[in-house]
């Protein structure tokens, strides 16, 4: 194996791939544009919906309880601290709820005024439509306002008896957040970003790998290549590094896209959930280790992709194998995605994909464990060696190389 030959193949493959519109579009252009656009659109949608749910919560009194006194009680006392709740006057509140003109109907029992005066409990019914998210949310918002009103009444009654309302709260609870300062409100970021990095590095090289071996076989360029001076190891390595490089180019393109999305709308990074980058401090050494683990993950998957592309008889067959690979990659990714940085176990640092997700979660969560990071790096290197050896063994197998 000669480095010179590896470099010749690598240089040619890069030139060839750069000119391949299909690879450029699927590896760079699409993810760079699509992912931030989806995040912005989705994030924007979620934020808009959240705003709509909480703003202009229209409610009405039921026909039976729609009196001037009841309206006064509801508007001036029950809903007074909630300017986002608007009491609407309507003749047919049920129809108005059906037509989305209001979101919730408040019904007071007929004897509410007397019972309030006598210090008796009153009954309030909230009618809403479970099938409508806005209506469901409105019922919760109104119920919260009613509870506040209820507490106020209790305080008034206790005070009128000459007692201190504090007797109702014999124990005070104080919560103290002991999380490191850098760990802010980044739950969504911890969940999304590590998963995306691992997935994109693992699958980013697929278009290149499919083209460089199965594509070559299909275009009949592979056999002439095998009759040139370099040994198969050099040819394999040239292609392998080209695939690895493309998986990182793909990752960089997507990260650039995410950055552009962040500049346009900071919440696009977390799909609309309000969780900025402020307060995150990245440990430089841990970050370097995590990047090395990511590089190793990219190389591991390049080996697998080259192997699958070598086994395939045609471009189409290779694409089928690659779609299975994507599914197989998603499983460990999703399995780790929802786990919090504090709950990561050492086993997760020994498996491909999981280890990269875990490493970045750890860093974003600000809870660095160097032992686990080094463990992840060492096992990643083992996987790189194993997958490369597997691809190399296939390159030497006549049955595989000349399946046609």
């Amino acid at each position, binding site marked *: 194996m000669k480095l010179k*030959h590896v470099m*010749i*193949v690598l240089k*040619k493959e890069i*030139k*060839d791939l750069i*000119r*391949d519109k299909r690879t450029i579009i699927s590896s760079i252009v699409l993810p760079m544009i699509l992912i931030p656009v989806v995040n912005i659109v989705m994030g924007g949608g979620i934020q808009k919906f959240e705003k709509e749910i909480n703003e202009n919560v229209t409610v009405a009194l039921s026909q039976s309880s729609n009196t001037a006194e009841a309206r006064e009680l509801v508007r001036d006392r029950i809903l007074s601290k909630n300017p986002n709740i608007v009491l609407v006057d309507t003749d047919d509140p049920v129809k108005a709820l059906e037509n989305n003109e209001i979101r919730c109907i408040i019904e007071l029992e007929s004897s509410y005024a007397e019972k309030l005066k006598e210090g008796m409990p009153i009954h309030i019914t909230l009618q809403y439509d479970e099938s409508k998210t806005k209506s469901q949310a409105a019922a919760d918002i109104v119920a919260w306002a009613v509870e506040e009103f209820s507490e106020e009444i209790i305080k008034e009654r206790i005070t009128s008896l000459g007692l201190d309302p504090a007797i109702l709260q014999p124990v005070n609870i104080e919560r103290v957040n002991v999380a490191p300062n850098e760990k802010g409100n980044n739950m969504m970021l911890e969940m999304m970003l590590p998963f995306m990095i691992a997935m994109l590095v693992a699958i980013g090289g697929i278009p290149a790998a499919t083209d460089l071996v199965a594509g070559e076989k299909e*275009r*009949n*360029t592979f*056999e*002439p*290549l*095998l*009759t*040139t*001076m*370099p*040994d198969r190891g050099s040819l394999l390595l040239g292609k392998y590094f080209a695939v690895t490089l493309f998986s990182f180019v793909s990752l960089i393109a997507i990260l650039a896209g995410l950055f552009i999305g962040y500049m346009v709308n900071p919440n696009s990074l977390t799909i609309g959930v309000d969780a900025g980058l402020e307060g995150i401090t990245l440990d430089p050494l841990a970050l370097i280790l995590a990047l090395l683990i990511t590089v190793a993950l990219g190389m591991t998957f390049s080996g697998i992709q080259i192997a699958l592309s070598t086994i395939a008889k045609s471009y189409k067959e290779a694409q089928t194998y690659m779609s299975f690979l994507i599914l197989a990659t998603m499983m460990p990714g999703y399995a780790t995605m929802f786990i919090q940085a504090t709950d990561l176990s050492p086993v997760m640092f020994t498996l491909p994909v999981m280890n990269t997700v875990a490493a970045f979660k750890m860093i974003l969560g600000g809870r660095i464990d160097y032992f686990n990071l080094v463990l992840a790096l060492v096992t990643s290197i083992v996987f790189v060696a194993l997958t490369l050896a597997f691809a190399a063994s296939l390159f030497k197998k*006549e*049955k595989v*190389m*000349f399946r046609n």
Partner: protein
Amino acid sequence: MERMIEVTGLVKKFGDFAAVDNVSFSVAKGEIFGLLGENGAGKTTTLRMLATMLRPTAGRAFLKGYDTQKEPEKVRAQIGILFGGETGLYDRLTVAENIAYFGELNGMSKAAIRERIRQLAQAFGMEDFINKRASRLSKGMKQKAAFARSIVHDPDIMLFDEPTSGLDVTAARDVHEFILRCKSEGKTIVFSSHSMSEVEKLCDRIGIIHRGKLVECGTVDELKKNTVTMIWKNYLSGWWVRNEAETCDDSTEKRDKGPDT
């Protein structure tokens, strides 16, 4: 005369099936040696073993004195190869880049490649499209580019694997001219074909390969004179081994369209 190719007892088995079975022949410098046989006879497998793409199960092959198994890199440096059907060019590279890539892989310096591309462009009349991408070329242009690429490193030995397969008459004639041009430059050539007229026209000597075995070997005149086997007789009459075919597999029977003799 110097022997450029020496093949002794070459065997290639795929499982129990012997694709090439104890084949021996030699080719002298500047000679065109034709491997004649039906599809699946073992011609391509033999050429692949000579090109070090396949490892023989038994036997040995030497090209310009280099053992195909012990010194495969040196063997590959001595050979140029042209496959039939597709030209095998990289569509996204220009003709010059295609040629340069193979030049670089075969150890040529950049300066030498530049000069060689200039020579080849002139020799094959490719000046007008040398910097065009292969995907934008006509079939004829692609073929010229493939010729040029196969000899960019000026190999002493050329291997042609059914190079006219699937080509029209004009393109096939261009291939024939290219083969004769290689011969005139002193190159040693092994040429496989299933067309009797083609090998008769081009080859100095012919080896008839049937079911993996080399059943006859000699000059066209010698073979005509010593029409000792049914296979050769039937080749000459344009008919493919009726008696053999009756015991062959389906694919062989389908190919048997000749008259009864």
